[in-house]
């Protein structure tokens, strides 16, 4: 047997070769340390789930599955139910996506397909700059600029136009689910548009040339590109959703922090992350603390699932059309 084939057969005595195929000890050190670092991250994630699970045992035992469907949140009486928080988290994120996805697609299409080079770079830079603004700054801007603007200019108009639906009824304060969703939309737009831009860039130029050669207009050509990049775009949207689900400070400042399920977008609502941030410092008794930790566990699992879905979608894209290497 030659040494070359030996390298790839793994037997019980071959751990040395696995560590360092070249026989150089530096190789082994490098490999071991990199593996350790990689597994350290995995260990942190597992550790977090375990600790969250262990610390929420008290609340899980007390409320069982009822925690997920309970609507009461009353620390004084020791009644805890997570449904209003789950509803607020999911709804505010969905509103964010409804607003943000068309914007993000528009930005990405403009940057990749239409903008001249001298414009594409600075505009792309400004969009990415949005992602670097701390969320508390978004929150303050939300209270002092966005909420009054919505209260005076947007929400009364929505109420007159769509007041007959249950979604735009009730008192107009500028603070509530809609404002929370809009703040989130602004925050996730740079993430989604950056990833979609990369997806679109990765669609092979031959697709565009083929479409144009068949007599397609520019708009028809862009549709071909969008269809090609669709799974990657879906992945981008889900990454944005993951960000929106976990956002805390900016949402807390404008959503109204009221654990109540109301169909109206004007009504105040509450998200899981906001509830934890608001109540953790003063949660003294054990059941209260445990209920907050269980909220954290729920949020962790939701984000975990969402991110997993995003990965799978992005993998699908790269596998199917080979050329897409820059996604996510």
């Amino acid at each position, binding site marked *: 047997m030659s040494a070359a084939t030996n390298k790839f057969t793994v037997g019980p005595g071959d751990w040395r070769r696995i560590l360092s195929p070249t026989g150089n000890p530096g190789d082994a050190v490098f490999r071991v340390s990199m593996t350790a670092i990689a597994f350290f991250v995995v260990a942190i994630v597992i550790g977090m789930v375990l600790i969250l699970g262990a610390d929420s045992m008290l609340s899980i035992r007390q409320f069982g599955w009822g925690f997920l469907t309970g609507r009461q949140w009353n*620390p004084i009486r020791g009644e805890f139910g997570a449904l209003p928080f789950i509803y607020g988290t999911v709804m505010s994120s969905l509103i964010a996506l409804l607003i943000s996805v068309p914007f993000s697609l528009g930005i990405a299409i403009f940057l990749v397909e239409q903008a001249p080079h001298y414009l594409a770079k600075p505009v792309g830079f400004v969009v990415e700059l949005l992602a670097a603004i701390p969320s508390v700054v978004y929150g303050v801007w939300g*209270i002092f600029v966005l909420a009054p603007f919505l209260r005076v200019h947007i929400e009364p108009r929505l109420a007159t136009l769509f007041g007959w639906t249950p979604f735009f009824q009730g008192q107009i*304060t500028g603070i509530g689910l809609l404002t929370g969703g809009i703040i989130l939309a602004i925050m996730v737009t740079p993430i989604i548009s950056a990833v979609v831009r990369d997806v679109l860039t990765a669609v092979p130029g031959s697709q565009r040339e083929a479409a144009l050669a068949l007599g397609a207009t520019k708009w028809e050509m862009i549709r071909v590109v969008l269809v090609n990049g669709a799974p990657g775009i879906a992945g981008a949207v889900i990454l944005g959703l993951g960000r929106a689900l976990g956002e805390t400070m900016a949402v*807390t*400042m404008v959503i109204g922090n009221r654990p109540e399920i109301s169909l109206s977008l004007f009504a105040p609502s509450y998200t899981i992350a906001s509830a934890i941030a608001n109540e953790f410092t003063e949660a*003294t008794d054990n059941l209260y603390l445990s209920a907050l930790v269980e909220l954290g566990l729920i949020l962790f699992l939701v984000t975990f699932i969402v991110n997993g879905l995003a990965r799978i979608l992005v993998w699908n894209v790269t596998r199917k059309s080979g050329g897409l290497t820059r996604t996510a």
Partner: protein
Amino acid sequence: MPLPKRSLQSIVLICLLTFVVAFVACNNGGSSSGSPSVSLQGAGATFPNPLYQKWLSEYGKLHPNVKIDYQSIGSGGGIKQIQAQTVDFGASDTPMKDDDLKGAPGAILHIPTVLGAVVITYNLPALGQPLNFSPDVIADIFLGKITKWNDPRITADNKGTNLPTTEITVVHRSDGSGTSAVFTDYLSKVSSEWKEKVGTGTSPSWPIGIGGKGNEGVTGQVKNTPNTIGYVELAYATQNKLPVAKVKNANGNFIEPSIDAVTAAAAASAGNTPDDLRVSITNAQGAQVYPISSYTYLLIYKEQKDAAKGKALVDYVWWGIHDGESYAKDLLYAPLPADIVKRAEGKINSINSGGKPLR
């Protein structure tokens, strides 16, 4: 991309230098003075934090060998940490409950330091004078039973004021807070319905309204939204020049919140303050008393394990309730009345280490 060797060397050099500088700096901080130094850790209430930080800097100038840190993590955290003995002193806006005291490994003393008040603020443009509120009206507004500004029960207390026909928007704290605890304690005393439906606590389940995070969150929403009503700390309202309502006290007088009216509340209730000084002074009797007032406390173990640390702590707290009180008014806290200082002295004198008094 491989880094050029020169830049790699300079990066390593910079890292090394940073470590050396940090190391030297830390070492200096610890043992600059020759005398044996004591370091104390405290944690708890956020409300008195500006005053406590002032105390620490002033006391540090007088006693450079004593190093005290205070983390304002919230009253709940302060109680947890003193129970777990991870800090040398805790701080809380509300006195510890009997169950919490039993859960602690030793007897915990409550030393009042200063007083604060919760004030009612509102946003009604073009209103000349401060609004007057009766206690039951405040409770019913926050219960959602009074919904319009021109409700006859509000106008009855504000004759001659032109109140709008608009709906009232209630703003409350969304974060767990001693401010909410004091406010709900007051409402529970003046309204049996509030006591039954909501109760007293740092994070009550509010019947109506929108939640703002912190004093600044409530202020932001009240300032920016017309027809709102909310509650914040007195100091915060004064600094931000918010409109503040007069509240009818137990004697039937409408009192504007002020430092003197808050100290008056403590003085008026000194007679029925229990021996351990754990007391709620909301809705106190007295002509000039502002009714939504409260103490803030330091929480200290009666038995100190370490005599040197205990001595430093006792000296510091003694200084705080005597010389330290002079900084209170500038920072908009109400100083303790003389009787309560006397009684707090007794508490401090009872702190001991292994049976030996530390003062």
